[in-house]
């Protein structure tokens, strides 16, 4: 009977370990190496006569307006981070821990912005609150003054901040609602009132979540393209991403590869430093971890007579910054011309949707987006699951380095990933085959979101006691059999959630695609950008609406059918 267990020579587990490690390394280095190369070459990467030089950096720092671009980027990132953190943390405490009326559905609506791309949200804001936006014009016609100007750094900061607030909200919510109830009970027992107990015990425990999401939102702001592009361009406010976009793609005659490479490398270094800093700041955050043993939910605070006042504030926030933004997109898509001066139902039309539905290019971009998200979601889930299992649950000697490499794309801004893969396909022989196809997009998106998948699977895996795999090993199963027969079935719910999350991320991604798509491989986001450049806001909104509707259907189906957990 032992004989069946005697395996000599070929060890498939080891083969899997090494293949996965090699593939992951290749995928992650893929976009970075060409950028690093390009930054030090005096001619385009594909030009055989290109020579090494450090002059690109010199030219970059002496480039006219570069100081202002750097300053704009920092101000924009700081502003949006502050708005995101303040609103996110406040919402988390109020919704997570008080008897606010309607906290259930308010909390649901609060995370809507996370499901769609910044592009959709930016268009929504533009439609409602832009200089000729619906709400802006309405306020001006009532009061006679223009109430705000979103085409400014502070305007951009507000929009970006509010669209990132849900991220801070979710992370802080996790911290405040999972806090051990006994800790607050202990504070009550030594004489603290309920608000004091919340303020002195639970709020400080949000600190790791706050630090983590602060750096995360700062990074998101630095690498954000949509808002700087849409809101900055009219007043020539440039940030590092819109500069890269402009230089890399819009420079009509010949893109300046050297400067783009240098700027991209610097951006990559800054973001990598921030992600490293985040890790450093999180060291020792274990002392805030209190969830162990029997978990009891902390009691809700009674707001008393403040209840409806707080409700009004939260409702106004949700209504004006989320509901109206989505509603604006739908309204703009359904009318020929959106203005508060004429009742919008008199201008109703289907021509915006007709244009999208009847133009093969536009329809293809919708089809491509769905296809990329489905295929990429499935392949990505499998790949990330194997990476996570090898790095967390195998005897592979390189497990730790593999995890480090797999998580590196956190430091890889989308625009850099796109640019990097763009260079890679023209540089590496043979890759030309996938140039301009949806496969290069799938590849690039997958690399970007390996950490997202890892972050979903790893905690679920930690819940599965490792004695279950050990039991399988001692029973005679090798690593791969253990993974497929024991761990994968137990991990199924987490795998479904990972697929759903990857689908949503792939479906809303556009920054990574701007350098990579070609006619035939366009996606919703790139088509929206093209339509916007032509000034066609009606069709843009129609496309945005279609994206929102498909996302909503997918989220409903994923939650019902797959039981996927997406954002709480």
């Amino acid at each position, binding site marked *: *009977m*032992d004989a*069946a*267990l*005697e*395996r000599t020579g070929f060890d498939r587990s080891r083969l899997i370990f090494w293949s996965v490690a090699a593939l992951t390394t290749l995928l992650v280095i893929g976009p970075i190496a060409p950028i690093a190369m390009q930054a030090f070459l005096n001619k385009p990467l594909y030009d055989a006569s290109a020579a090494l030089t450090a002059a690109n950096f010199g030219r970059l720092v002496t480039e006219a307006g570069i100081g202002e671009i750097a300053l704009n980027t920092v101000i924009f990132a700081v502003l949006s981070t502050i708005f995101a953190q303040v609103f996110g943390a406040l919402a988390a405490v109020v919704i997570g821990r008080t008897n606010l009326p309607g906290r259930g559905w308010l909390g649901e609506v609060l995370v809507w912005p996370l499901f769609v791309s910044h592009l959709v949200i930016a268009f929504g804001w533009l439609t409602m609150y832009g200089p000729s936006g619906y709400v802006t014009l309405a306020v001006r016609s009532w009061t006679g003054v223009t109430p705000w100007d979103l085409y400014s750094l502070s305007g951009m900061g507000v929009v970006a901040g509010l669209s990132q607030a849900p991220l801070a909200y979710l992370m802080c919510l996790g911290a405040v609602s999972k806090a051990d109830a006994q800790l607050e009970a202990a504070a009550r027992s030594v004489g603290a009132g309920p608000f004091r107990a919340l303020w002195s015990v639970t709020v400080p425990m949000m600190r790791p979540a706050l630090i983590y999401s602060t750096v995360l939102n700062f990074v998101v702001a630095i690498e954000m393209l949509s808002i700087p592009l849409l809101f900055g361009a009219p007043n020539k406010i440039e940030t590092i991403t819109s500069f890269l976009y402009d230089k890399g793609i819009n420079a009509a005659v010949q893109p300046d590869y050297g400067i783009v490479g240098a700027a991209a490398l610097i951006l990559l270094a800054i973001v990598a430093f921030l992600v490293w800093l985040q890790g450093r700041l999180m060291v020792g955050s274990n002392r805030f971890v209190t969830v162990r043993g029997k978990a009891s939910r902390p009691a809700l605070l009674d707001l008393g007579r403040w209840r409806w006042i707080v409700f009004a504030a939260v409702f106004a926030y949700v209504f004006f910054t989320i509901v109206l933004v989505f509603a604006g997109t739908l309204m703009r898509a359904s009318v020929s011309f959106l203005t508060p001066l004429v009742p919008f139902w008199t201008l109703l039309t289907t021509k915006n949707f007709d244009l999208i539905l009847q133009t093969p290019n536009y329809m293809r971009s919708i089809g491509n987006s769905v296809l990329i998200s489905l295929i990429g979601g499935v392949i990505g889930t499998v790949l990330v699951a194997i990476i996570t299992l090898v790095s967390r649950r195998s*005897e592979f000697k390189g497990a730790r380095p593999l995890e480090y490499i797999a998580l590196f794309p956190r430091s890889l801004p989308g625009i850099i990933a796109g640019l990097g893969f763009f260079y890679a396909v023209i540089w590496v022989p043979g890759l030309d085959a996938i140039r301009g196809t949806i496969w290069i997009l799938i590849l690039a998106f997958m690399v970007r979101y390996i950490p997202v998948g890892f972050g979903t699977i790893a905690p679920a895996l930690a819940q599965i*006691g490792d*004695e*279950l795999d*050990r*039991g*399988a*090993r*001692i*029973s*005679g*199963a*090798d690593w791969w*059999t253990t993974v497929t*027969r*024991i761990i994968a*079935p*137990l991990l199924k719910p987490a795998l479904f959630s990972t697929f759903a999350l990857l689908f949503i991320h792939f479906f809303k991604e556009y920054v990574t695609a701007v350098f990579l798509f070609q006619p035939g491989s366009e996606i919703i986001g790139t088509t929206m950008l093209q339509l916007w450049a032509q000034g066609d806001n009606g069709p843009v909104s129609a496309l945005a609406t279609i994206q929102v509707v498909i996302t909503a259907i997918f989220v409903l189906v994923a939650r019902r059918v797959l039981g996927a957990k997406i954002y709480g």
Partner: protein
Amino acid sequence: MADLVLDRLTIAYGDVNAVDDISLTVPSGEFLTLLGPSGCGKSTTLFAISGLNEATSGTIRIGDKVFFDGAKGIAVPPEARNIGLVFQSYALWPHKTVAQNLSFPLELRKVGRAERDSRIKEALDLVEMGKYAERYPFELSGGQQQRVALARALVYRPRLLLLDEPLSNLDAKLRERARIWLRELQERLNVTTIYVTHDQSEALAVSDRIAVMSMGKIQQLGTPTDIYERPANAFVADFIGSANFIEAELVGRSAGQAQLRLGDGTQLVASSCPEAVSGKLVLAIRPERIELTDAPGANVLGARITHSSYLGSVHEHEMAGQGFRLRVQTSRAVSSPEVLVRIPPEAIMIFQNGPEAL
């Protein structure tokens, strides 16, 4: 079946040797217990035998089949060792029924369906769980899960059975019944068994031999009687049962007896004394061997009771004398705090060093 041999086995984590140069031979069919406090290296040794931990140096083999050889770089993966292991948490796969849990190792061994079914039934009947084949683990009580875990470890007839504190999650009454049942089963199957526990009464009750471990080393290897009555050093005396320790000095030997002097000058006689000891010593005396007496005499000391506890079957007293403290067990309550205690010469165990020196 062949003997299990560990030879100069060392398992290091960084600079720390969790298991330090252990050599051990377990004859076929023996029930051997690794006993020691947590962190002594007993589970680490067990998992190294299973292959789930990799050892650093030394060899592990059964007969001439080598599982691990640090010098030759041999490390057979756990799945190829054909060993049965019962985990402390049982590790039953929650998505498989009891029968499927038992079926999995048989499928891996390419056992045909009919043979598989009869083996599963046989193994479940062995642990009296035949009725529960179609249940899922979460539908079973802790004791039932423990039996299924054992059946799963036995169903493929492993050459060696390893048990990692399998009873520690059961309540006290069930634990006592389970250990008797476990031992009977092991004798019936005659499977070589390594049992890890930190519970000394469990170890004494089930084992053929016990290896008492501390700090990664085997302090003593012997039968339960050896370990309890003739501990090799003060650590073993302290860990198995309990012992009073009194510092003393050896003043002379005669006719196999030893004359001892306590700190305050009191003389004691011990009926046996190891050859190797001399000078300052440590005496170990088990609380249940000390007697209360009315009259002064040889080996009688005066003491004062500082605290008494009623433990149900016995009374236990903390006492203080001139330069020593004692714990003494009596069957009846003691009325006066001032007492005379007699330490029988044959109850005195003599060691050069106290338990803390190890």
